[in-house]
């Protein structure tokens, strides 16, 4: 157990990097997706809806495979880690699109009316009235998305990124101590998820309404 521990720590660091980078990308995709889905342009709304439907309607593993193995055919040559980050980020972005959109449309309609009545433009209303309230509503559900994302990073083991699950698999299959190896990797995941959860709660408390 002690012998393998350093390898697990190294792998955990890769898992953390995967999580952070794909989360950042997911937030960007989510924001763009939500903006598209709430846009006044039918073409943008259709694009946003298609993004959400296709990504959520197909397995993340297949999406990773299309990008990593299929990418070279359309001129996209990526390292496994890069492909993993992009595919995972693009995937969670579709879920985050729905989270963000849900938060924005659940801000009371009267808020929009009041701001527009004062003479604020659509954009000004969104920026200074709707968005600050929507941000508060979306932190917890985004936390749920991020929790799923952290566990979801495991599937890039299938394209041989040496992260936590890949490493665990190697030792589960070779050490005759499968349960110990599982618990070791599992505990590291739990720690990462627990710490992330603390961060989300902290953020949620910080922006809570007075």
């Amino acid at each position, binding site marked *: 157990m002690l012998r393998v521990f350093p390898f697990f720590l190294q792998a955990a660091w890769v898992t953390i990097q995967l999580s952070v980078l794909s989360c950042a990308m997911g937030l960007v995709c989510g924001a763009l997706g939500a903006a598209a889905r709430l846009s006044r342009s039918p073409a943008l709304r259709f694009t946003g809806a298609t993004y959400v439907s296709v990504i959520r309607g197909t397995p993340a593993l*297949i999406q990773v495979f299309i990008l990593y*193995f299929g990418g070279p055919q359309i001129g996209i040559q990526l390292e496994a880690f890069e492909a993993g980050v992009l595919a995972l980020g693009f995937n969670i972005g579709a879920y985050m699109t729905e989270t963000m959109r849900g938060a924005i449309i659940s801000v009371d309609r009267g808020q929009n009316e009041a701001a527009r009545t004062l003479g604020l433009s659509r954009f000004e209303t969104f920026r200074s009235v709707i968005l600050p309230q929507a941000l508060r509503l979306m932190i917890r559900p985004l936390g749920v998305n991020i929790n799923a994302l952290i566990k979801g990073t495991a599937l890039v083991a299938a394209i041989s990124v040496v992260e936590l699950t890949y490493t665990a698999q190697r030792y589960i299959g070779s050490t005759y101590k499968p349960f110990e190896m599982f618990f070791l990797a599992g505990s590291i*995941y739990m720690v990462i998820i627990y710490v992330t959860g603390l961060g989300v709660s902290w953020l949620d408390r910080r922006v809570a309404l007075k």
Partner: protein
Amino acid sequence: MGLDFSVVPAFAGVLLTGALWTIAITLSAAVLSFFGGIVFAVIALYAPLVIRYPFRLFAWLFMGTPLLLQLFLIYFGLIQIGIDLPAFVAGVIGLGLHFAVYNSDIIQSGILAVDKGQYEGARTLGLSRIQTLRKVVVPQAVRSVVPPIGNNMIALLKDSALVSVIGVAELTLSSQMAISRTFRPFEFYVAAAACYYVINLGLEAGLRRIERRIQLAR
């Protein structure tokens, strides 16, 4: 190397077989996860402490770790201690247990959400604990748990792709077999994605029908 989807139809049979296996594994795991979820919920709520606490630890571990890791444990791990499960069985057990834990969570809150007055009403009529559960609580809880369990089933369908990694010849692995013959990953993974999308549409339609029937039964 450009794209050429005309290679796909030649492997339609392979993909179709894979799709059928995907449906088979999804349905089997769904059934396991449903009944497993009920059993787990009852354990988590009503079992004696010595069972309840270890169980909660197990549930916590299953919810906090990746499904793929759990599949590796069940498939590669159990061999180490002399249990050699066929890949399909390992896949069904892994998916089924994983989602049973999530379903159990939903079922627990469904049961707890049934008004306390309902228990008291039933118990004063002389119904036993089990009878109260079966005849009064469960029928009411079912309505609130069906939609979220349905969402889990949709997640299960997509997560079933992971069992390709332990060698179950479902849709994902079938497309890989076609790829190893043609060296056209983009085309076949997209074709597989399209199949998943269609199966997903069917599943969603089915779930909507079930939901509507339950709503009508009010």
